């Protein structure tokens, strides 16, 4: 039975086993591989997409549940990496291996849409469903704070607040080399 829904703004029809999780319909049927398989049990968050704006684990979401809904994947977040979360991720240089980052970004984008001025504790709570084995958590925390500012329209202040973060280690090295400490 064909399922009709909206995918990244476009009307889409899927004619697959209705039990098939959205993750595999995206990856294998629609060849949209930006959404990642990590665990198959909604434990790691690598497969996170937005369904009607809610961050949702696509690995346990059957295609049958999508009729009439709006699905956004990482490919649909922006056409040109211009979403505030993507911009912040590039500014802080968050990804290492990058495999979990589609899911991290989708979780962060849904979270910031509802919580534009998050506290550190809210960030940790919202993002703890997304595992990063490379350990980019500190960078994600920073990037979410930057994204919140970008989202609020303060791109310049965001940049000046955090642009130096990646330089910190070297600045320290320079200072020490110069015997200033």
């Amino acid at each position, binding site marked *: 039975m064909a399922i009709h829904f909206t995918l990244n703004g476009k009307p889409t029809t899927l004619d697959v086993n209705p039990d098939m999780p959205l993750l595999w319909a995206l990856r294998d049927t629609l060849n949209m*591989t930006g959404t*990642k398989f990590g665990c*198959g049990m909604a*434990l790691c968050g690598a497969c996170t997409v937005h369904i009607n704006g809610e961050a949702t684990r696509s690995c346990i979401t059957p295609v049958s549940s999508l009729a009439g809904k709006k699905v956004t994947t990482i490919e649909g977040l922006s056409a040109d990496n211009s979403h505030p979360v993507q911009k912040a991720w590039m500014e802080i240089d968050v990804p290492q291996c990058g495999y979990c980052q589609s899911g991290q970004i989708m979780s962060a984008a849904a979270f910031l849409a509802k919580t534009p001025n998050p506290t550190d504790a809210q960030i*940790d709570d919202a993002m703890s469903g997304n595992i990063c084995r490379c350990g980019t958590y500190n960078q994600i925390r920073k990037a979410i704070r930057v994204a919140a500012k970008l989202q609020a329209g303060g791109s310049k202040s965001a940049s000046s607040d955090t642009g130096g973060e990646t330089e910190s280690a070297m600045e320290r090295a320079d200072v020490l080399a110069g015997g200033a400490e």
Partner: protein
Amino acid sequence: MSAVTTSIDRRNFLKTSLAGATGLIVGFYLPGRREVLAAGTEPAVLNAFIHVSPEDKVTILISKSEMGQGVVTSLSMLAAEELECDWKRIHWEFAPADKAYFDPAFGMQGTGGSQSVHSGWVPMRQAGATAREMLIAAAAQKWGVDASECRGENGAVVHTATKRRATYGSVAEAAGKLTPPTDVKLKDPSQFKIVGKPTKRLDTPDKVCGKATFGIDARRPGMLHASVEHCPVFGGSVVSFDGTKAKAIPGVKDVVPIMTGQPPVVTGVAVVADNTWTAFQARKALDIKWDEGPNANASNASIFREFEERSQKEGVVARKEGDAASALSSASQKVEAVYRAPYQAHATMEPMNCVADVQADRVDIWAPTQFQTPSQQIAAGIAGVTPDKSFVHTTYLGGGFGRRGWSDFVIEACQLSKSMKAPVQVTWKREDDMQHDYYRPASYIKMAAGLDASGKPTAFTARVACDSIMNWFFPGSIKNGMDSSSVEGVQDIAYDIPNILVDYQLTPGPIPMGFWRSVGASQNGFFSESFVDELAAAAKKDPYEFRRDLLSKKPRHLGVLNMAAEKAGWGKPLPRGVYRGIAVLEAFDTFVAEVAEISINKDNSVRVHRIVCALDCGQVVNPSIIEQQAMGAMVFGLTQTLKGEITIDKGRVVQANFDTNEPLRMNECPKMEVYIVPSKEVPRGMGEPAVPPVAPAVCNAIFAATGKRIRKLPVRSEDLA
């Protein structure tokens, strides 16, 4: 430091061309270290390539696998520094599998051992400098001026006197016809414009929009999807199987046996389908009769019992200085302890996978592999073609940590493609990945030390019992019972102790062993640096000062130890309930000290608030990536300290997914600070060395908080009750 002049033997210099490429292509044979090459292989160690197209596209070929460690960016920086090209317009590609890209440290093409920046440090800069000189020579010839009057600048050759300018692309083709210079001068580090500066990663833009292609994202026309049911017991095999029910499921194309081992036996059964999910689902309908083999009763208890028995007997000596036995017997105080570490899974976020396309006269694989050469050879063997007809397309790796040095996923994909006469992608479920890993060895160690009346150590002994990684990777390669990876992190204990004896009881077991981020130091660092903390306590000395006094002859250890202590505010008051621990280790020639601040929750779980890391990895190539890698390694180290563990029951792995073997999550992640000790030494890697100090720093802080000594990982709340 003066400018380095490099001499390149003309015979060792290779000008080559990629299929269909025009313009200038430069690469190097790297002299030396040929003894590591396997017999029969040519001594061609071509390490770097630069391609300048007539259209002004500068492409750096990356011979290493990008698994998050930033090697695409770091190696490109080294080449670009000398090439004098426009960094903002740099392109890069993963290199094909070829002898030209062998790493001299391994005698093959592969990524590991925190080796990439170190082994690329000279050759990548030489490649850049040589390419620049050839481009300058071509432009000078065109202008009829002397090459010494010209310079490379921002992607162009400039004639200084007349300010004439020729883009690299415009002279690339002519440059490609010139004889390469036999020696080039490399810049003094004081002249560096790119190297040493915080530089954004080249791979980030593709990793924030889903465009980066990992192995699991490879797609080929007509590709089928497969998933393999492996024998749940290590060393078991398939007696018989019936795929009738699975084949009746819509979308299933076939059910195919997988053969592994020497001699090959059927150890798994694959379902091939038109999508991954159907292949996963149809595995449940397979009817397989297993022969569980000789290991069906293996368990953690039986394995550790064997370690304990073996440790009663003398092992093969890894290090012997002085007479530790007599020094121990005459010591005024003796400290003894037994420590244990469990198996660990790599648990890369991207489960194992591979795409293979076996054809009559060639094979192509799209693989997230750390070791291209074995992958190439294995694919060729299965396809029945020579290795030069075996093409490895290295993808991004969704984490590696050593797991992807193995090629088991390549074997499966190639066998399935050959059988199906079509491109096949094999994808492992998370459960397959966790239960069929090559694990960090579980290990058991007995340590003893003697202290004199003043509390100074006079003797240290350690006996390690565990299985050997090298024996699993190269079966039969361990002839004398010594695998240095089993003892690294304790054998190289740096403290000034006059009598030392470290020996090793290689204890073969049924669980597959593999390289795991920081390898032997990941467990031995916990053992040795926790035990040294025990010695400080026995001597009634401050753990930092105790270490400092015993490292007076080890300036680089001392440098990071002092910086970590200073930056952490060692000795200064902490909030109520918060305690510090410290550890310092060298791994892969990089020196790291860490100070952890922890508290104990009401439920006896451990909260890590902050880790301060000081490191000395030689000269800095990209401080941003060093910081990233150190922080990532600390998170990896915290997982093994507080959470991660693989246990064995009935010959199989108990844990299956992230619910039972859960990596650290963001809400558990402490604040981390990274400080780089300036150094003029040759650069060393940062992918691994910040892992080992985490466990001892945290456990030493637990001792400070509770008086309880953690001698077995991971830390469990019941240990602190």
